[in-house]
């Protein structure tokens, strides 16, 4: 009796099950339970949410395995965790911890400024950030089973996520039979990768939005623009009332096309996370 395991179809299949959902950054088991109770489809376990990484500076790394295990024990929804770009040993550790999904993330300090992890060699699925079609396709060629916009994490400012989403869509729709070869060369990917996108008029993997979602309206905005789900990093646990905010963002993501519902859930949420203009930032994570 043979069982096929860890194939790309199974990896991208899990991403498909997350569609329409909210994936929340959590820093401990209690927050993970709040996230699950609010209706999150998965949690992202990390020691410091992006807003704290910005504030505290220094090198941001993969979280302590103990923290990840505690969070794993606390919930039944999938558990994701972040590794530094190019840090394949951190990815091996997460795989050994038997979590469900790895995020090779620009929010952490990159470990390799030349190359990303060869993700197809791993049993676990990976999600990666992208600002444009070339970046998305390079990550997919390396084995990513899910893509998210990079946006600008920890800012509470949606403008970069919108920019990256529109850029990817614009580039997808500008593909023609005549420019596939040139684009493949420009992006540094195989021709059939670009051709698949040209045929389907979309990325071949589930695509979420991340980086700057701070309110239910932000989540609904991205869903109306065509996102298949959202990651919320600092937006929940840096807000005044995390439980209410978590639930409201889940409701707004599901009811993105019903303004009366988004209005109702947006009532009395208190202060969102402390937010920043992009031009005031010391570092842009997205450039990593």
């Amino acid at each position, binding site marked *: 009796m043979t*069982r096929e395991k860890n194939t790309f179809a199974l990896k991208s299949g899990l991403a498909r099950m997350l569609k*329409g959902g909210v994936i929340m950054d959590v820093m401990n088991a209690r927050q993970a339970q709040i996230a699950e109770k609010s209706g999150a*489809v998965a949690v992202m376990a990390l020691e410091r949410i992006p807003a704290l990484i910005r504030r505290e500076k220094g090198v941001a790394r993969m979280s302590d395995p103990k923290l990840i295990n505690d969070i794993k024990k606390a919930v039944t929804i999938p558990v994701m965790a972040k590794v530094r770009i190019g840090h394949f040993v951190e990815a091996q550790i997460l795989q050994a911890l*038997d979590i469900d999904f790895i995020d090779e993330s620009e929010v952490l300090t990159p470990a390799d400024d030349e190359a990303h992890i060869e993700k197809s060699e791993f049993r676990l699925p990976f999600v990666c950030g992208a600002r444009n079609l070339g970046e998305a396709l390079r990550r997919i060629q390396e084995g990513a089973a899910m893509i998210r916009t990079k946006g600008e994490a920890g800012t509470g400012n949606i403008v970069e996520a919108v920019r990256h989403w529109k850029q990817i869509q614009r580039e997808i729709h500008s593909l023609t039979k005549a420019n596939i070869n040139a684009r493949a060369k420009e992006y540094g990917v195989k021709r059939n990768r670009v051709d698949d996108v040209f045929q389907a008029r979309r990325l071949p993997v589930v695509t979420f939005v991340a980086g700057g979602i701070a309110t239910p309206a932000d989540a609904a905005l991205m869903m109306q623009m065509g996102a298949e789900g959202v990651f919320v990093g600092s937006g929940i646990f840096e807000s005044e009332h995390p439980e209410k905010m978590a639930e409201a963002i*889940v409701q707004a993501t599901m009811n993105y096309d019903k303004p009366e519902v988004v209005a109702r859930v947006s009532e009395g949420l208190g202060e969102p996370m402390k937010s920043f203009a992009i031009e005031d930032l010391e570092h842009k994570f997205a450039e990593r």
Partner: protein
Amino acid sequence: MKIGILALQGSFAEHAEILQTIGADFSFVRCREDVQGLTHLIIPGGESSTLTKLLKDSGMWEEILKQVQDDTLQILGTCAGAILLEKLGMDLYCDRNGYGAQQESFLADLQSEKFPNLKGVFIRAPKFSRVGKKGINLATLQKEPVMVEQGNFLALAFHPELVGETRIHEYFLKK
């Protein structure tokens, strides 16, 4: 006959593709009113805790439960959908993530008289650790039940919608 696919979260687009392939008309179900008048409802794969919460908060749960009790609604549930069927009253015990975390997700050949050469994609799938007396096993994996029919309920631990398998949907729509 009025077919609906629960389209709050999860693999609803994949179920829609299957129904399009077999030429069945359907609507996406996203609020309480959408449930009314349905004869067939498909609950897709996704996260069962998320789906349960969204269904309850929107009042859809009550409406579905009412139609289950009135015996007017056939429901197909895949993976998370099967867990919801248990919560809706099907006599089935689902062990959540019973086959393990994502690394244990797999594709395997299933044994089924009704559906020869059936393949099952199991993604963090629930294990049907107990099937009620009225439950009929329609497919098994190494003798374990993975597809159970009980009255108006049809529960699958796997995802036919991910591999273009149409026979189960055709069977469901004949119910």
